[in-house]
């Protein structure tokens, strides 16, 4: 019986010299994929508007240029009025990401202020602030956003940013309040209070640095919410329809019947861009979750010994002779981790004792 001990998950990781590259390698795969994907879009947003081949609003009067399929001159084709889809996309990514990041920053700042002050003030104010955030969590956001924007005479970028920020803080506030309550009672806070530090100093230098990961996750979530909501609002027509964002692109594609005309190059790029940015953010968030909770990590992070998958958190497996099972019981048993061990391990008695290793 040969048991090959896994030396390291990746031999190159050991020989790599710079420290931060080693740290990057050890990030969960999902976080890495999310960062790379998001990086591509951020890059597109930064340099995109400078390199657009055409003016996105320029309507080419020549009828031959209407609804062109992707070609060398127009890499993503043209719209019905002869506008270049690629130029619109590059400007649209910029506008949408810009809006989402501003909303994310403002709403996260609001949620930190509300969450920390609720936890610190305690008593009556805590009750009021928690109740407010719970109420705004339970009221569906989109109809309220539609109502607010519907009444505004100017539905520009600024109006959307304000409205989305005003409604985007409750989830973060709730999470940050809970975390602040937990940290508040730790010894190091009591110690700094004993040394006579003022409350605002404790909050800014002791509490908030300990919540950075939580605040970052809340920021990512808020950005995700802002993208989804702003695109949906623009799709309904509640936006400045003369500007180019991913949402207004979809609005024009839908209202000018891109689907019925078979012009997939018109509505697919903005939709895919939204979906990919969203996926990147979800991956990033899940990856950050896994960084904090190693149990959630996927199977690639788990030791494989003799072809069997073992998790660091597993108890030392003890094998038993497989008893004959009925069909249903057998099916249900096949869900279990033990069945995995039995498949391979039943041949030799010492095969059952294995130490998961290789995790650094």
């Amino acid at each position, binding site marked *: 019986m040969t048991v090959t001990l896994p030396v390291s998950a990746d031999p190159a990781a050991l020989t790599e010299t710079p420290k931060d590259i080693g740290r990057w390698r050890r990030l969960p795969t999902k976080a890495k994929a999310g960062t790379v994907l998001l990086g591509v879009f951020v890059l597109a947003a930064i340099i995109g508007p400078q390199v657009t081949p055409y003016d996105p609003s320029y309507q080419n009067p020549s009828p031959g240029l209407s609804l062109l399929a992707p070609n060398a001159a127009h890499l993503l084709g043209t719209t019905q009025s002869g506008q270049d889809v690629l130029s619109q996309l590059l400007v649209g990514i910029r506008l949408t990401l810009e809006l989402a990041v501003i909303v994310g920053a403002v709403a996260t700042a609001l949620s930190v202020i509300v969450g920390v002050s609720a936890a610190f003030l305690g008593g009556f104010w805590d009750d009021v602030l928690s109740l407010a955030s719970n109420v705004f969590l*339970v009221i569906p956001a989109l109809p309220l956003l*539609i109502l607010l924007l*519907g009444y505004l005479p100017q539905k520009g970028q600024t109006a959307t940013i304000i409205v989305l920020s005003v409604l985007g803080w409750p989830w973060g506030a709730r999470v940050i309040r809970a975390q602040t309550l937990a940290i508040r009672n730790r010894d190091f806070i009591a110690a700094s209070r004993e040394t006579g530090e003022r409350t605002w100093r404790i909050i800014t230098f002791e509490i908030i640095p300990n919540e950075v990961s939580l605040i970052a996750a809340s920021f990512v979530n808020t950005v995700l919410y802002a993208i989804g909501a702003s695109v*949906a609002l623009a799709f309904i027509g509640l936006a400045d329809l003369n500007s180019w964002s991913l949402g207004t692109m979809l609005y024009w594609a839908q209202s000018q019947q891109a689907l019925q005309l078979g012009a997939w190059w018109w509505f697919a790029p903005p939709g895919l861009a939204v979906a990919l940015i969203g996926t990147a953010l979800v991956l990033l968030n899940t990856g950050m979750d896994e960084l904090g909770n190693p149990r959630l990590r*996927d199977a690639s992070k788990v030791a494989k010994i003799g072809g069997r998958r073992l998790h660091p958190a597993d108890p030392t497996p003890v094998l038993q002779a497989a008893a004959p099972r009925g069909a249903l019981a057998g099916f*249900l048993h096949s869900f279990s*981790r033990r069945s995995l061990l039995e498949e391979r391990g039943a041949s030799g008695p010492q095969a059952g004792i294995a130490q998961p290793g290789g995790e650094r």
Partner: protein
Amino acid sequence: MPFIIRRLVFYLVAAWVALTANFFIPRAMPGNAVQDIMSKFPNLQPSAYKALEAMLGVGHPGSIWHQYWSYLDDVFHFNFGTDVTEYPARVSTLLFETIPWTLTLVGSATIIAFVLGTGLGIVAGWRHGGWLDRVLPGLMFFQAIPYFFLALILLEVLAISLHIFPLGQGYAGGLVPGWHWAFIGSAIYHSLLPAFTIVITSVAGWMLQMRNVMITTIGEDYVLAGQAKGLPNHRVVFTYAARNALLPQLQGFGLALGFVVSGAIVMEIVFSYPGIGLLLLNAVTSNDFPLMQAIFLVITFTVLLANLIVDLVIVFVDPRARTREAAR
């Protein structure tokens, strides 16, 4: 206070906040909504003008308290005023025509997605690292897609190119709505694609959450104890691990409902489904403020009611909820 009464009070507060916001938004916004409406619909009667002024608080229709009380009184009697687009029609009539469509479609699709996602999450969490667990990042893509975009794609492929499903609408043209098989069959056929869109976009979220809680729960000592006792696996999975892992899932269900409803509103627009989302779009594009306000209230109250039902289920599933002191 028992858990369920606390929750009831909370939902009453939430309902009151929604009602009050609905009352103050038209009064706080710049611009003159009544003028906008009147310029768009020149055929409105002067009586409608008066009613709109009273409803939106333009002009001087009495003190703000007086307005507020008469507004609350109207809402309690389902009196949302007269619609301006389809002028003599009452807003409440329009609502009663569209609500059943949305409720049936979104309600059943959401429940299917929840049950399916939770079930898959149990399997993915139990077989942590198995194939189901590994396709999860792929499913996240579907979670991140805006509902309406997936709807557009499915419509393009399944309805326009392959002609498997109808192009939209709630039922085939020419049929008279009623309780007969031709109509019901057609309605079900037309709802399949929209329902599928909702299920496929929301199932990944439920699955991911259930998987994560499952994995954490499986690490608990009582699950190990159950295994050590030699209990059959299905008992350990469902009675020991899944039942406990279900609680955060249920609590999340109530909060996620708002997102599901929001997505479904926009999705209806793509399918021209005769539900409340399409009605809302028409209200928005034609500045039909009374209808917009009524729809906001109806959606909010439905979500609150669904949350209350979820809380009742939590009390049923979790014995601790019946005795818990502070349940925030």
